[in-house]
């Protein structure tokens, strides 16, 4: 069943066609990769899913409900969580707080006036957060400030912030950029493991190792349009993809 349906999406920035008649179907429980050269419009496409950007025309449906013209927090509450290309975390807060906050959001909704509780006595939320921090391998740094992390670790923290919410759709914009080879492989393993929990994922990646380790379906974007779509094996040999990547150096 299609969990995300994108129909005829268009967005112009001045004269630039950033999104050009995009159609996309993401099947529930699968990993769908979006690849393409820099400036192809991949991040812009995700922006329209999470309420950061309103497209000029077109539709985006999640679980048969329209996503467009909703506030970002409403979209998250529907079960969509995004890891950004440049990490968006609470830099001045501890790692534990960083993960506890999304856990509260999942438990309490978009607003609850809980001014009388105590962070260190919210054992359920604490445990969940600790657990996910262990999953991503950051448990030892739980009391450090998020700003002190390396770029790769920040991205893992952001991933933890999404995972703790057990979203139905996880949007990953270059989840391994800035990570060492070892960390990249850890992240691949982690994403595979959470795949078993039935979370649908859209992954934008330049690292083809990651793409071919994870993806069940790949959409290739170039200049705002989806030029090819198919299973990893089909994509590998496609001449149009080779061309988009300037002779296929990446593949």
């Amino acid at each position: 069943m299609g969990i995300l349906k994108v129909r005829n999406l268009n967005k112009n920035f001045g004269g630039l066609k950033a999104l050009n008649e995009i159609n996309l179907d993401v099947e529930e429980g699968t990993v769908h990769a979006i690849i393409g050269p820099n400036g192809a419009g991949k991040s812009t496409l995700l922006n329209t899913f999470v309420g950061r950007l309103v497209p000029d025309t077109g539709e985006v449906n999640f679980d048969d409900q329209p996503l467009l013209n909703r506030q970002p927090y409403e979209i998250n509450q529907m079960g969509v969580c995004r890891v950004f290309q440049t990490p968006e975390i609470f830099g001045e807060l501890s790692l534990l707080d960083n993960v506890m906050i999304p856990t509260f959001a999942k438990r309490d909704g978009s607003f609850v006036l809980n001014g009388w509780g105590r962070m260190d006595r919210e054992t359920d939320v604490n445990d969940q957060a600790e657990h996910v921090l262990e999953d991503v391998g950051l448990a030892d740094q739980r009391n450090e400030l998020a700003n002190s992390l390396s770029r790769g670790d920040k991205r893992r923290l952001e991933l933890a912030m999404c995972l703790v919410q057990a979203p139905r759709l996880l949007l990953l914009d270059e989840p391994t950029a800035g990570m060492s080879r070892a960390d990249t492989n850890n992240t691949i393993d982690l994403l595979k493991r959470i795949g078993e929990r039935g979370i649908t994922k859209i992954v934008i990646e330049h690292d083809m190792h990651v793409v071919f380790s994870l993806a069940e379906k790949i959409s290739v974007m170039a200049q705002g349009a989806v030029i090819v779509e198919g299973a990893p094996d089909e994509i590998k040999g496609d001449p149009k993809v080779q061309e988009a990547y300037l002779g296929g150096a990446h593949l």
Partner: protein
Amino acid sequence: MLGLSRKDTTLLLIVLALVVLAPFLLNPFPEDSELARFNAGYPDLMQRFVIFGIFAMGFNILFGLTGYLSFGHAAFLGVGSYAGVWMMKLLTVNVVPAIIASVAVAGVFSLLIGYICLRRSGIYFSILTLAFAQMSFALAYSVLTPITAGETGLQLSLNDPRILGSSAVDGTIPATNFFGIAMRDGFEWAVGGWKFTFNFGYYLCAVIMLIAFYISIRIFRSPFGAMLRAVKSNQQRMNYTGINPKPYTLAAFVISGMYAGLAGGLMVAVDPLAGADRMFWTASGEVVLMTILGGAGTLVGPLLGAGVIKYFENIFSRLNEADLNQMFSGLPDGLQSAMVTVAQMFVGDGWLLTLGVMFMAVVIFLPGGIVEGGQRVAGWFRRKSGTEKSGKAAPAASAAE
């Protein structure tokens, strides 16, 4: 204790002890000594310490946690004091209804203003709050004079109805009181050369300040407090993580407005006169200074900042040339007059220069305010005395965070 961690309980008890013993601590010099002019243990000054402490503490919940810098919080203090005086005119000179009304009215007013101003952030938010406060100030002087009594200031009179009390007692306006104990009541205690004053009004304000401080600790440690810090840190992430930052910020704004109203209510409880000048922008700026000077985002910082500024405002501003001549009288003639000339710039009307220099020094060298200074000193001691005793100095310093 009271749902606080051990660290926070210690902090609360330290503040409690300081507040209870303030009449002694602030009067360390014998009455007839040279230094007696540096004593600050007078009822009205001690009242100001705790009242402005409440004001700054509330301001800190907004500014320290969410980072939204309001330049109009004096408006809520002003509105609170008008509401308080009206209660004492209409109902009774018992201060309880007055204080409750001050908090409630300031709360409603801040809900209204916060709702509008929080549509913008950063400098635009600050300008909007400033504009609203100046507007309130101007209105209090013009069209609202029937309510505010304009330049004279709103005060009690013999013709007030006071339906729950009496308009006049023995032909005079009755004294503000707490179930019969007058605010100005108290007693003095003279031992040796010292004289200590214990004033009921001060202790009532102090108890309320302690309650406000306790609430502030609870908020700081709560999930709500974490959300407010998240607002300051990254509103984008909050949004994409399923949280609507707006109601959180508005709640912080209203809470801090209510603290300001409480401060205004206590001011008129101890001295039943409300004037529009309390809403002037300088008063809004002062609470910003107090909070930053003490340490924005820390628990005790605003209290310390309020204390320091009120101390300088009241003690330094009173020193004059004669005082200085006397203080430096031990020095050779030429040096004495030089010292007096220099020092004179910083006292009397020049106290604002002292404040300015102090404020700049803090912002440049101690961005975390006096609290950060205290933590650094505690850090030195810890390093000097080795790791064994490290547990001792640490809690007080870090509890203040």
